[in-house]
């Protein structure tokens, strides 16, 4: 299969509330400018565009349409959009590159989470007949899942605090982190519970954000980037729609996607996981089968900044940046849906296979 690589990545600052519009233009324009300048290209060099976003965040039908103003899509562009995290837009673009029809693609995602009640809005992803009418929020589901794990002895409250403390400390070295703190688990355990049994640091912050990635194929990637991050595996799967028929302490879709993307080689320099709640990092680690010594979310991860519909794409971007900087093999994960029902894994490497 054609060698495809991430050659550029940019993202908007993580912020609790931008004063921009819900169509993301203000967050996207600087991302695009960054990418063009960094790669020495213009919009006309892009062969295919693909984006990910959600009408429900904006409360309007077709909210993604206005985002293409950020591109300046005149003359018209070869473009598509998924109502998903933009990591899946990257997948669609990857497929397009593999067909050989185009040799570059720009993928972007955006979400102004602060415009509504995000926790509640995400609850509208559940079964619209028998679950959503209860008014259940995303954090309610996560809390129930966390207690299930506590009761099953899968983790302790201290384990969760350790995850959160590590994330907060890691974020100290990330210039754009929304939350960063030199703190230990001991201290975090003294803080109040917000979504019983979860404490604030176990839950993701509300983050407005946007991210963009440029993909290129073969020699075009080598032209554009000194050390492209080659996508040596990319797979995604979805779990059952029956929320309570699922095993809440397993992520079979992630396990399958990771197995296929890793191709039997577990060697990794780092893993960027799209796990918004602290216990989900532990679940995802186990589902992927990450070795103990693989660093997870060296940037702090979603617990320190959780942009919607661009967060998964950003995991891929950060993993790619790691490869640009010399890492050999890095895993990126994107998840979405109630309790991370749908999962994507990309493996990025310094040399194509």
């Amino acid at each position, binding site marked *: 299969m054609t060698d495809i690589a991430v050659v550029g990545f940019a993202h908007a600052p993580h912020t609790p509330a931008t004063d921009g519009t*819900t169509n993301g233009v203000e967050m996207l324009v600087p991302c695009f400018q960054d990418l063009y300048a960094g790669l020495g290209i213009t919009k006309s060099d892009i062969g295919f565009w693909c984006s990910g976003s959600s009408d429900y965040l904006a409360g309007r039908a077709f909210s993604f349409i206005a985002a293409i103003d950020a591109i300046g899509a005149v003359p018209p562009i070869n473009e598509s959009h998924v109502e998903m995290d933009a990591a899946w837009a990257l997948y669609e673009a990857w497929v397009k590159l593999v067909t050989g029809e185009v040799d570059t693609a720009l993928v972007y995602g955006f979400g102004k989470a602060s415009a509504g009640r995000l926790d509640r809005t995400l609850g509208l992803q559940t079964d619209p007949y028998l679950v959503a009418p209860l008014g259940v929020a995303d954090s309610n589901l996560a809390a*129930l899942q966390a207690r299930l794990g506590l009761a099953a002895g899968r983790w302790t409250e201290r384990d969760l605090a350790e995850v959160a403390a590590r994330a907060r400390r890691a974020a100290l070295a990330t210039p754009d982190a929304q939350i960063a703190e030199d703190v230990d688990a001991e201290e975090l355990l003294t803080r109040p519970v917000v979504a019983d049994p979860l404490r604030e640091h176990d839950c993701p912050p509300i983050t407005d954000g946007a991210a963009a990635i440029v993909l290129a194929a073969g020699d075009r990637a080598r032209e554009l980037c000194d050390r492209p991050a080659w996508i040596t595996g990319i797979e995604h799967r979805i779990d059952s729609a029956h929320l309570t028929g699922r095993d809440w302490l397993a992520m079979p879709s992630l396990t399958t996607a990771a197995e296929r993307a890793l191709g039997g080689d577990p060697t990794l320099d780092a893993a960027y996981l799209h796990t918004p709640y602290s216990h989900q990092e532990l679940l995802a680690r186990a589902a992927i089968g990450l070795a103990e010594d693989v660093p997870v979310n060296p940037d702090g991860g979603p617990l320190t900044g959780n942009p919607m519909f661009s967060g998964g794409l950003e995991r891929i971007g950060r993993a790619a940046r790691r490869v640009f900087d010399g890492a050999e093999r890095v895993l990126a994960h994107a998840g979405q849906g109630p309790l991370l029902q749908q999962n994507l894994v990309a493996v990025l490497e310094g040399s194509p296979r």
Partner: protein
Amino acid sequence: MNQPLTAPLDLFFDYQRSTGPTIGAFVTGLRDGRLLGARIGDGRVLVPPPEYDPATGVPIDDFVEVGPAGTVLSYSWQDEPQPEHPLDTPFAWALVQLDGADTPLLHVLQGDRDELEVGLRVVPRWADERAGRITDLVFVPERRLSSSKPSSDPEHPSSTSQPGSDPERPLSPSTPSSAEAEPVSLINTPIALSIEHSASAQESEYLRGLARGELIGARVGPGSPVYIPPRGASPTDGVPTEEFVQVADTGTVTTFCIVNVPFLGQQITPPYVSAYVLLDGADIAIQHLILECPADEVRMGMRVQAKWRPESEWGHTLRNIEYFRPTGEPDADYETYRHHL
């Protein structure tokens, strides 16, 4: 530039959901005070019954009555109930594994926070009037609670239709009427969304202009097209239009339609002329109403001027212009606006 303007955007709709046979069987059971699960291919009983087998996709119709009692597998306390919740007093979210089922049901549990524990035995408390909705019941601890009281909060008066509001209510469902009643096949699921809508910084300058009775457009730079409203990104260049330019409140109707059709949520009574008006000094048309002449006399090229509302009614909105009306000038030459069609 100043802070962008924001305004609430509230959406509400009563979605009417046809259930199909499987969800229909479950919600009919709820109306009749019974809890149904269904056996799937691997032998497990799932609640609610899945429409299709998660593993094989086969339609599911092997219904099994489960409960009514069950065991709490997990719970999470909700200190502050929200308007969308089934209860207006603090409650717990719970995963309840009903007797006879192999997997839990996600629901709400009314009880004392101190009594919550994994393994707690619970039973449904049914609403008197049931419509076949998931909120026709709540769960309560099997050992009857005596301490809980009906809500006395005047902001949230307890509703008699709420299943959990009266602790003295019998646990068994009121007279099941299943024998005569038709199966439930349609359920109402209201959905409300509140969004804080933001104008872009550039559009906000225009809105502030409107509040002063001025029409403010903007362009990327000299010689570039003037956009009204100004754009966060010029659609042809992807860069903001930030060189502000005042445009006239007179212009030309480029094209229009006459809306004769009434519809839900409509804010103007039909018939009305919805027209594209190319304001003098702008390079893109805005949409507005044309009045003060019969609808069938409105024509492409007609010269019009804004009819502003009284200044005391002005706000940050294009509604400050009540409508456009003919100026009586000769029509604009077709060539002056044909490239805006």
